[in-house]
């Protein structure tokens, strides 16, 4: 994982009980990887009074209880943690789980496949192949724990839909920009819907409703409808665990 190049962060007040952290850098890829690295470090050394964080693609919202700490203390801790280089090398390596997610890509499960193919100048089959060849990394968990991933390799970034779809089925595989996300529950989306997995992504009856976290690696494996049905797919679990 890339670490922050210079350790420089911008800290912006956001109301009376939050601050917003960003990494000022011209390169988008560095902004994004540096904020992920900062987030991991911040959570590992969480200052007193910090309640929670919310990851954006290029930002980290830090929420605190202003009666337990002061905004100035939080800002100070943020800058200190950003600049601080741990003496004994990289931080504790976390376990990366790997997921192979079977996906049915057809007209019904992927209503935006054709338009995405036209937009990036490929045949729909080539779009499916490109998705299957891409190695995705979970950058953050979005609304309702949806895994939001980086790593889509297509000739160009995919636009969002001008008119959001109102009712997308759970398990829908959706793309935008160079990102992919899986829809956990029925609902609206502005992302382009290209396929669907038969697995349950989020199961609220489990003590931990998901099996994945940020930093985990995902590949999509095209399957036919019959193959998908034969899988008897339940809750999504990782294929293997590597350190």
């Amino acid at each position, binding site marked *: 994982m890339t670490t922050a190049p210079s350790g420089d962060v911008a800290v912006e007040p956001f109301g009376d009980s939050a601050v917003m952290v960003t990494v000022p850098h011209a390169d988008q890829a560095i902004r994004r990887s540096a904020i992920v690295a900062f987030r991991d470090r911040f959570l590992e050394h969480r200052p007193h009074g910090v309640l*929670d964080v*919310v990851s954006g693609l290029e930002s980290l919202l830090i929420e605190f209880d*202003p009666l337990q700490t002061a*905004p100035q203390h939080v800002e100070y801790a943020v800058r200190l943690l950003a600049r601080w280089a741990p003496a004994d090398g990289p931080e504790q390596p976390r376990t990366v789980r790997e997921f192979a997610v079977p996906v049915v890509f057809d007209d019904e499960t992927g209503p935006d496949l054709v338009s995405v193919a036209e937009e990036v100048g490929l045949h729909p089959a080539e779009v499916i192949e490109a998705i299957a060849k891409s190695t995705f990394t979970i950058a953050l968990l*979005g609304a*309702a724990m949806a895994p939001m991933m980086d790593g889509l390799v297509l000739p160009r970034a995919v636009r969002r839909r001008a008119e959001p779809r109102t009712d997308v089925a759970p398990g829908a595989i959706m793309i935008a920009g160079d990102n992919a996300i899986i829809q956990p529950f029925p609902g609206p989306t502005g992302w382009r819907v290209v396929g669907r997995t038969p697995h349950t992504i989020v199961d*609220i009856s489990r003590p931990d*409703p998901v099996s994945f976290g940020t930093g985990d690696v995902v590949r999509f494996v095209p399957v036919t409808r019959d193959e998908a049905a034969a899988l008897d797919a339940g809750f999504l679990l990782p294929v293997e665990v590597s350190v």
Partner: protein
Amino acid sequence: MTTVALEFTGTGWTTTFQDLGRRDTERRGVPTGGAADQHSAVVANLLVGNPRGATLIENLGGELALVPDADVLLAVTGAPARVTVGGAPVESWSPLVVPAGQEVRVVGDAGRGTRTYLAVNGTLAAKTLLGSAAPDARMGFGQLVTRGSRVLLETEFRGFRRRFFEPPLFRLPVPVPRFDEGPWVVDVVASHGIHAIPGIREVIEEAEYVVTPRSNHVGLRLDGPVLHPDTDAEIVSHGVPVGALQIPHADELIVLGRYRSLTAGYPIVGVASRDCLPLLGQAGPGQRLRFRWTDRDSAIRRLARREAEVCALEHAIAEAFAAVGFETPLPQH
């Protein structure tokens, strides 16, 4: 410990289990959620000797009614409401002893706040998701309490040997918020986005806004004047605090609530002070709102004053209950 059944003989438009929300789940995409009016929820629990974050009932509109099958210690807080026990009027924002078989009935005054909270001494049997009983509609966790359902309660309460129609048991320093008839005033701390829209500070300060029926737990949508930024710069998805004032492309102002998600593309001109969030949580369609700009330090000072009042209540209750031989958990703060 005894198990008591509460039979819900009436429910409002939306009656759910509720608490102060999820902790440390926003980093995994699950909003904190929880009681829209956190102050009322905290005080309801304290009044019955519960920890602040105990599971309680949140009721929106209509008539909430329940009958316990043993004596219970109960309190109703939130928006102004007519509360009766066995048909006799009783006080809200006060501990009540409800005898077995008597019906508690709560009828809110919808014109002056939308939500009432009902806490009962003990632990309500409710499902949890990620450590909290608060509903999360997006994840299919409804937590609805339906009419006719029996909810179980584990309680240590065995009665004060008092009748509910006798004078109030205690004189407690209860911080009851004002739910004025006129427009409610909400303090707002300006945020970075205000610089993208010249003149918006003055527009928001001078105008009166009205909550529209399109509002929900994700946000209050307000009718009133707004301005838009000149540029249409793409803003990358980012997290926002509860209470953020967002200006969408349409001519309206949105105040984001406890179930907001990431946002992108819309400027955020300020964030309502934490102290004012409980009031915003009570605002329903038709409610008029005015905004007052404040600075971060003043906002935190007002929050500290409110917290001091709640702490004073917490200690007074611990003493009063101990005096009648009823132990409550020691205050954690």
